């Protein structure tokens, strides 16, 4: 997938565990794991908003576009 989720990088910077983050943003740890491991096909704006709120960052800090040729 050309869109890469750098959630683990931001989480490491903010020193927050996956369990804590899933509790704060209100999604299951399994779904957070899907997101972290780049297996997600899409992300809801509401989830992105909660992640940005919890990690105090911008969507661009979490999502990255890499051209696949």
């Amino acid at each position, binding site marked *: 997938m050309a869109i890469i989720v750098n959630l683990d990088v931001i989480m490491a910077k903010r020193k927050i565990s996956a369990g804590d983050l899933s509790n704060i943003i209100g999604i299951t740890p399994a779904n*957070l794991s899907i*997101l972290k491991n780049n297996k*997600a096909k899409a*992300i*809801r704006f509401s989830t992105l908003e909660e992640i940005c709120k919890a990690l105090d960052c911008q969507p661009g800090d979490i999502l990255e576009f890499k051209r696949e040729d």
Partner: protein
Amino acid sequence: MWNSSKSVLASSVCTKIVIVIVILTAVASPYLVKNYISYTMKDPDIITPLVMTIIACAVPGLMALFSLDRLLTNIKRKEVFIEKNVRHLRVISWCSFAVSVISLISGFYYLLFLIIAVAAAFFGLILRVVKNVIEQALIIKNENDFTI
């Protein structure tokens, strides 16, 4: 109170009953055909082809029934939109087409089989469409499951 799980259970029981009936009919087909021919006073030369047709149709029939049973087992486990179910529906559909072809060939010596050929082909076609629908639903479900 009647609910969906009881409905699935009833379908499963019916499938198992039909499996037993098909096996018994296939085993007893020489005896049944002989009696039918003597009762209706038809040409005794068609006994062997009739028995062969019944046994030939019983094989894809049983394959379809076993697939149907496995499909119902998955539905009982609340696993509806999975790749396995698409495969089961494909098998049932192809089995229907196989029965249709066998019946079509048998229609040359016994016209009544042509009706079964048309019915089986129609049933196979409907199942193919259902299979296509489940296939598309599977894609939508995957998309939905991986939307966080």
